[in-house]
């Protein structure tokens, strides 16, 4: 493999030359808030603070009942509206004077107290849909009400990342089934994986893997202007085989942690942890928890047991991932966010379940997170057709993640924002 520091023309390495040649803009200038950096080297094509950061999105499909997840146990309206479903204060895990976690979230209590979990309250959007498909579409496209749009917010974010690095795998969908619309972009294709070796072929390599590199040194003196398509595919090949070696190295030294997982979500998150540790440059991981729509969180009947099981899997899996990330030293490089297409109604429905609601809360996990309860709890007396009324538009949360965590322009991905960004991250992150 060629030494990447080997200087060629004008003090630039071959890789930097190729990067210039393959980027859409000759010398891209990236403006992120107050930071403005000229991308004159491969390393500075992205803002350094952002380049090693990963974002994990967990979709809780079905409409999670946030009122029984983070319980307003001091509010009599809650107890009155939910005679059979309410979580009583004695069983709940208090996290503030008025809010408590569902008992199944016990594993997250430590995470919350350590300040690495934020609960962003009252998140939704105007005229939110109560249909699963429509509401998911709105959260995925970040263009509420637009039935025509086919791309998703993370797909468009990948398209932006692609202009800085046309070769890296910017995102993966970890799961089975149809890829969610959120990750569909115009130019970047997000691979789907269920196991580590879905991304790479772990069979012994062929000679061609090394043959890909044979011709590279002889071509290194070519200038960026002369770089042609064959240079591009050879560079992709070199980096792809590199990626393959990294994944295999991680697999070889891996213990049985991934296989020993108790829950499917835990296995998926540990798999993601492995891929983050392999430093493959993947910035976005998308996980579907709850299955295809309407999804497991759609608890219209006999909610208590089902919800308890789902929250238990979620909490144990998150806790397990946080432990892994702490031990692996990458909790500061990862931000994990859960979302659901809507919350549920305050009142239970007579079948020991709840109906589709409106606003919900997001869980955000990571050592960079501004831990605690963020935002006011929506009023239980001023409801939006029986559900909670939103005060924070989800697109403002997306904008925060894009701008402050991934270093991607929110305007390019989301267009005009309906409000300011959200103080999700610790100051100075």
């Amino acid at each position, binding site marked *: 493999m060629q030494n990447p520091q080997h200087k060629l023309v004008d003090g630039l390495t071959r890789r930097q030359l190729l990067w210039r040649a393959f980027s859409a803009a000759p010398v891209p200038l990236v403006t992120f808030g107050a930071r403005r950096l000229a991308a004159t080297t491969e390393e500075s094509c992205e803002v350094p603070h952002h380049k090693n950061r990963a974002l994990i999105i967990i979709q809780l499909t079905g409409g999670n009942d946030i009122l029984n997840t983070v319980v307003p146990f001091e509010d009599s309206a809650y107890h009155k509206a939910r005679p059979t479903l309410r979580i009583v204060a004695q069983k709940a895990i208090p996290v503030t004077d008025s809010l408590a976690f569902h008992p199944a979230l016990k594993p997250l209590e430590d995470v919350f107290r350590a300040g690495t979990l934020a609960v962003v309250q009252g998140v939704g959007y105007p005229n939110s849909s109560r249909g699963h498909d429509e509401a998911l579409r709105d959260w995925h496209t970040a263009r509420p009400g637009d039935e025509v749009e086919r791309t998703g917010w993370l797909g468009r974010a990948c398209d932006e990342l692609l202009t800085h690095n046309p070769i890296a795998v910017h995102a993966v969908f970890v799961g089975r089934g149809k890829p969610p619309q959120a990750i569909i972009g*115009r130019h970047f294709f997000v691979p789907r994986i269920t196991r580590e070796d879905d991304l790479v072929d772990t069979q012994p390599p062929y000679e061609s893997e090394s043959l890909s590199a044979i011709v590279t040194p002889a071509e290194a003196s070519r200038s960026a202007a002369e770089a042609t398509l064959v240079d591009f595919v050879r560079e992709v090949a070199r980096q792809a085989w590199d990626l393959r070696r990294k994944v295999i190295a991680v697999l070889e030294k891996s213990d049985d942690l991934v296989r020993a997982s108790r829950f499917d979500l835990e296995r998926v998150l540990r798999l993601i942890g492995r891929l983050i540790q392999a430093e493959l440059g993947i910035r976005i991981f998308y996980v579907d928890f709850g299955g295809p729509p309407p999804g497991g969180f759609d608890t219209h009947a006999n909610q208590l047991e089902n919800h308890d099981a789902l929250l238990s899997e979620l909490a144990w899996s998150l806790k397990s991932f946080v432990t892994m990330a702490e031990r692996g030293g990458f909790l500061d490089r990862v931000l994990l966010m859960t979302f659901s297409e809507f919350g549920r109604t305050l009142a239970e429905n007579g079948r020991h379940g709840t109906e589709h609601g409106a606003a919900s809360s997001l869980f955000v996990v990571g050592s960079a997170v501004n831990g605690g309860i963020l935002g006011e709890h929506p009023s239980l007396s001023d409801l939006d057709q029986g559900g909670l009324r939103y005060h924070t538009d989800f697109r403002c949360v997306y904008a925060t993640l894009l701008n402050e965590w991934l270093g991607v322009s929110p305007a390019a991905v989301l267009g005009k924002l309906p409000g300011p960004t959200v103080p999700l991250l610790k100051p100075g992150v």
Partner: protein
Amino acid sequence: MKTATFRSSMSSFRAIDPKWAWDEYNSNPQEPWDLKKAAHLYRRAAFAPGYGDLSRALEDGPAKTITALLTPPEGLGLFHSEYDTLLKDAARTQGWAGIRAWWLRRMMESPFPLEEKLTLFWHTHFAIAGDRVGDPALLTDYLIRLRQKCRDSWEDILAEVALHPTFLLSGGAPSHRKMAPNIHWAKVFCDHVALGPHNHRVLKPEEVARVWTGWFVLNKKLRFIPTERDTDPKTIFDQTGDLTVAELVQLVGRHPLSQEFIVRKLYQYFVSDEHSPPPALLRPLVELLETTNSVHAVVERILRSNLFFSPLAYRAKIKSPVELVVGLARSFESLIPTAPLGEELASAGQDLCNPPSFEGWPAGKHWIHQGTYLARKRLLKRIVGGPTAQSTLDPWKTAQKYQKASIRDFPKFLAELLYQHDLEPCVEEALQKRWNSLTQIRPFAPGQAAKILLTEFLLLPEYELT
């Protein structure tokens, strides 16, 4: 122009004389008709050449070879009627997986591969997504009609698609009410179907949305409801009146900007998608479309042209995943099981039933990144090394057919068939050494060794280029 290789320079692109570009290529001492040019033609017009195709093309010369590729062969009607029946059955019993499998098989077996390439071109252009249509039978009907029209006039093709229910369903616009004209969808129509994103104000989405009022998809059929029709005058280009969808289609299909949009896409599909050609270069093709009203005529002019056979076009595209595997099958005159292939191609970025965005699939360099590159290589490896029971891909047998199945000739056979000796000498030498070591294994199993060597050839980055 220098001889084409993998390293064809694009530096002289802007200086091309349009007349020279589209004049007919004739073999000459500087640019002789050779293996490279014949293979280039087959890769672009027919997915890939078999060894027999190359030999015949060298014998026939460019003009006759191109005519053969452009002419529907005898028996095509029967071939299609059998395949249409199989496709409809597969759509009914296996859904999307059946459609993908039978279309891929048709691409591998069609006696008229250019038609399949053009059907794929239009499918990418209209970007109709099965997931949005929701009914495999409806998508099947659309694809059959698309194939029937694929070489006609732009106006006819647009008319066929515009009034097919899949068009509105895939666009997320099954209802066009008088009081709520669908501007979002009309913008998509202007930007991605009719004119391209830079020209949409020439065709105003507000007006286009009103033209469509009254049209609905009900029970999977297109219905016109007169009471939902906005009968006020609409202005499309310079025409004003109570214009209908049929009139809109006619105006769009005949508008020079729309014709340039389609010609540009045909250029990118058949010549190169690495650089945006200047309008002056496209002008002769646009004029040809205006005068002949025939997509076939434009494709013919492209395939016969100096520019098409110049280094500017040579290996100047990255294969789509479909081109990658269909080309492999056609190179070895073989049939690869297509049932698993549909899903594998989706994993490599091309779900045949679901172009991801209104722009179709990503093209050019966007086809490959680290992840999709590995997925493509794994797929090629799996196809060659997979179970032989269902696959007829056997490189040693193909070599036998052409009297090249000997220890001495086989590497040269692959180098000619797949790369036309464009690989760097050091790479060819390394592959020869690999072959030498494979032939030392006792007992020598030529079929197995041939497959291993073929895999080595396919795993080279250069195989990604067309």
